[in-house]
């Protein structure tokens, strides 16, 4: 069980507000990306986020541009997971490939308030909130392997090594 404080947002949070386009042309280090996380949605976020915090949002989180930085900046800001009603697919992939857990649960999202502390148990697929315990669908095995290795690149490195 890992505790985390919640930052809650609405539907259709797009990647332009998660990581502004004006920074995408600089090949930045992840720590610097983290300083611009959610800059155009919530200017307080990057200053106040703490390791282990959780982003909770509505439908279609991460829609828009394919920029990998949207997932990278959240991971390196210390976000332990994003819980949403649904995820845009490119962001969903990027998050998994970066080793950032993305959890889908409508009920959990509806019950969680911003600022509250919640606990996530990844192994049993449970989210514990003030209002109760909610389950999220476990990851398929192929995706779980990527998450467990911390992302697609470490996962591939391990796979390629195994082949030799």
């Amino acid at each position: 069980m890992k505790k985390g404080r919640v930052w809650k947002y609405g539907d259709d949070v797009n990647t332009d507000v998660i990581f502004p386009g004006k920074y995408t042309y600089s090949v930045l280090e992840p720590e610097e990306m983290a300083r611009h996380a959610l800059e155009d949605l919530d200017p307080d976020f990057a200053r106040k986020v703490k390791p282990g915090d959780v982003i909770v949002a509505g439908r279609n989180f991460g829609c828009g541009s394919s920029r990998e930085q949207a997932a990278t900046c959240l991971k390196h800001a210390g976000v332990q997971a994003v819980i949403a009603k649904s995820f845009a697919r490119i962001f969903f992939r990027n998050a998994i490939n970066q080793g950032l857990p993305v959890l889908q649960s409508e009920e959990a999202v509806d019950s969680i308030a911003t600022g509250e502390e919640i606990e996530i148990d990844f192994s049993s697929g449970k989210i514990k909130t003030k209002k109760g315990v909610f389950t999220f669908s476990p990851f398929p095995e192929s995706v779980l392997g990527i998450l467990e290795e911390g992302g697609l690149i470490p996962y591939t490195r391990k796979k390629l090594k195994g082949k030799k």
Partner: protein
Amino acid sequence: MGQTIIEKIIQNHTKEDVKPGKIVWMNLDIRSARDFGGPNVVKNYEREYGNAPLAEREKTFFTFDLCVPACSLKYADNQQVCRQFAKKMGIKVFDVDSGIGSHVMIEEGLAQAVSTVVGTDSHLNILGAVGCFGQGMGDVDITFAFKTGKTWFEVPETLKIVVKGDYAFPATAKDLTLYVLKKLGTHKAALKAVEFYGEAVKDLSLSGRITLCSMVTEMAGIIGFVPETSDSLREEVRELSGSEFSPLQPDEDSAYSDELEIDISGITPQVAAPYSPDNVRNISELKGVKIDTGFIGSCTNGRTEDLAQAAQILKGRKIKDGVTLKVVPATKRVYKEILERGILEDLFRSGAIIGSPGCSGCAEGHVGLTGEGEVQVSTGNRNFAGKQGKGQTYLASPAVVAASCLAGQIVSPEDL
């Protein structure tokens, strides 16, 4: 149980059983990176794999289209990083004179029906317009694809949409697209492949299909296909790409997650108001909104047919004083066509600025941004806050953008 188009294409590229909801490892025919995402692909690749060879260099490409030619040192450096990597690895670069990568890949016959293409462009699903699997991905995915020629993919469910009725000018393919987006919002097609049916979509030219399929991204869908084709379309694609056009058809007993009907009979021009592409209104609700600038181009509306539609309205007229209009052909080939057909001259004489082929207005920094308070009407596909600067962007058809630039406010061509 039969298979839908997306299931069939994926099945053609994997040995695993393909069914909706299942994640499979699939083979990729083409993988590409742009000047956006590309430098990070290079950085990831060199860090992880050093100088180890690519899976197949002849199936790997760079397509520069975001900021072409480079308008800042950052862009210039990024493009050069890709060029140097390409030279070392023996990869072809479609350089800053080529145009929008997805369109170039159709024109070059690289993106063909039943093939699989990935790249760092969230509108790469445009390739659905030619029955091809196209998917935008982040730079980690593309690094992996460069190295292995494979990707993991969750087979989506397929939504069947039957478009009923027909439309007539001043409504165009873009208005059909925006109207469908208005009806679907970002929820109904979310995470699904879409198959569009009906006379109106069957009759769409390649350019119209590209417009419709490009905005499946804004519908939150995975990709869109238009299975029914006309003789003229097959001829158009064959002539453009240099190879036969034979897209797959779904099996008769294929399973759809849902079937929706959208009646487009008698639609008027549609306009998406800031700050969301699905915030679509009938033009009558927005008539009279004062504009400062217009943009005609993008992967959604940057083909010859789109620019011809605008030129027809602009010909012999002058853009209103104090208003600017930026026109950008999708590719070098489109540029050549508008030059040869006199379209370029009509645009120029009306007062339009012509930019070099590429993504332009949708890409931060190229062919101008909007300043705070500046109002733009654009043929692009996104109007999120901050996407094209600090101003407000309305999305519309090339015809509406052209008419609005003449009037200095949002109007329908029939109001001129």
